């Protein structure tokens, strides 16, 4: 199981590249501009990783997106991010 991070918004083709690189159990963590993807309007882009989609709390908060996020997206803070990198075999960054 790998952890993938994405720091680009869902309008970027990098999202498709990240999804292409993800295995069936891998987790996707949205960070920086990537957290825009946590808005409910973008839910369909992430159907393939339903239940495995995370967003970084600090990046949601700094953009005012925390209250607006899709409730299906799991929120982790930086410490949670670090523990994810420990429980996952490797981390692959998509940027």
């Amino acid at each position, binding site marked *: 199981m*790998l952890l993938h991070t994405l720091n680009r918004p869902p309008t970027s*083709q*990098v999202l*498709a*590249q990240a*999804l*292409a*690189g*993800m*295995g*069936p159990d*891998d987790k996707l963590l949205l960070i920086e501009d990537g957290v825009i993807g946590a808005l409910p309007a973008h839910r369909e882009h992430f159907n393939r990783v339903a239940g495995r989609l995370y967003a970084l709390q600090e990046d949601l908060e700094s953009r005012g997106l925390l209250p607006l996020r899709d409730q299906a997206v799991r929120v982790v803070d930086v410490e949670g991010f670090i523990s994810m990198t420990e429980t996952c075999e*490797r981390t*692959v*960054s*998509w*940027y």
Partner: protein
Amino acid sequence: MQDATSQAELMVILRHAPHGSSWLKEGLDVALVAAAFDRRVTLLFMGEGITALLEGQQAGPLGQKGTAPTLAMLEMYDIDNLLVEQRGMDELGLTSDQLMLPVTGVDDAEISRLVASHALVLNF
């Protein structure tokens, strides 16, 4: 380096086009260094990175070196496993006969298997 990954195969993913940024060059440099130290390297071209393989590329308008000579050099470093994202090829409307090197097209399922099976994956 004697850790478990020291002999593992490296996959370098190239997703940026030539000339626009230095990402492509940096990714190729990493691949060459690894190969110079006898590590097996797989290159995967995704998205705009595929345009690095187009025939007929030249130096930039200010004389900046292009990446085509470096790509031609890969075989001298025994880097011969060149993969391209098939969906990216389709989106760019390109076919493999327009590319300067022989490549193998891979679909999303194959890409996720490759990312999982290489102990080292570097994204550029």
